[in-house]
């Protein structure tokens, strides 16, 4: 195989690969991954909010009010997280 021949074949192969990559990009993000990403984001924010509320309750001795408040703030934070990452996915 001559050098030119090799070069043209390389070009063709490169084009094929880039085309395939473009096709892949559309459904690249597997739906399991996306679903799991959203659910963990929601849950972790709620968990963090509740933990913060629990710690603040212990330090200030205001059981059970702060844990309740921070639980709901955590829920809000989780929902904003989910909306934000869903918006990022649509880009």
């Amino acid at each position, binding site marked *: 195989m001559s050098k030119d021949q090799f070069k043209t074949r390389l070009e063709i192969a490169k084009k094929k690969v880039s085309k395939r990559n473009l096709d892949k990009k559309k459904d690249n993000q*597997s739906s*399991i*991954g996306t679903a*799991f*990403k959203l659910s*963990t*984001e929601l*849950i*972790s*924010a709620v*968990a*963090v*909010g509740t933990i*913060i509320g629990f710690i603040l309750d212990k330090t200030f001795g205001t059981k059970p009010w702060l844990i309740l408040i*921070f639980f709901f*703030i*955590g829920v*809000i*934070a*989780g929902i*904003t*997280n989910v909306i934000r990452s869903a918006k990022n996915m649509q880009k």
Partner: protein
Amino acid sequence: MAANPMTQFEVYRIGPEIKIGAFDISFTNASLFMVISSLAILIIFNFGAKKNTVLPNKIQLLAELSFTFVSKMISDTAGSKAKPYFSFIFSLFMFVLFCNMFGMIPYTFTVTSHIIVTFILAAFIFVGVTVIGFIKHGFGYLKLFVPSGVPIILLPLIVIIEIISYLSRPISLSVRLFANMMAGHTMMKVFGGFVISLGVVGGWLPLSFSVALTGLEILVAFLQAYVFAILTCIYLNDALNLHH
């Protein structure tokens, strides 16, 4: 075969007990598999980088492919400013990927199916990204918690929400990897147990499920390593290019 599908996650000591103060730092099967995956990465990349031929052999191809894959991922998500952190993200991706993949071999131990391992990785990333953000922007990094165009009355609430969502990052990062790996491996063990208990007559259906699950788990093992690395890139992007 063990009847309990959770016995595969047991950590036990290999060799002598080593104690420093109150901490038990003995060599366990988890540490063994971490060492094995790190060694495998080192060996593959040493051999891959040894001979630089124009037409690469298989190992070199593997090394080059993963290199370009990660570098493209970083430039796509975090831009050119994240170039200095390439080595960190690359080793992180490779480590998680190899730990996941080694777990797919029967009778091995999956390191990433333990939340403490993934949580330490995620906490390390979280602290590192926060420190990078403060170094790059000084106290201006705190603007991340104050979105623009919010009425003053709502501001305290929004700031608390933003802080909680920022703190939830390491938890969501670690729980995702850990839960995926643990759920998948438990499911594989459960279906494997069905094959044994149903025997020759009824065991064919769970066996086919097991085969399908193995394929799915290999996909998940790759995907989770990818997601772990790409989220690190996204967090790094937030820290480097502040726009909120």
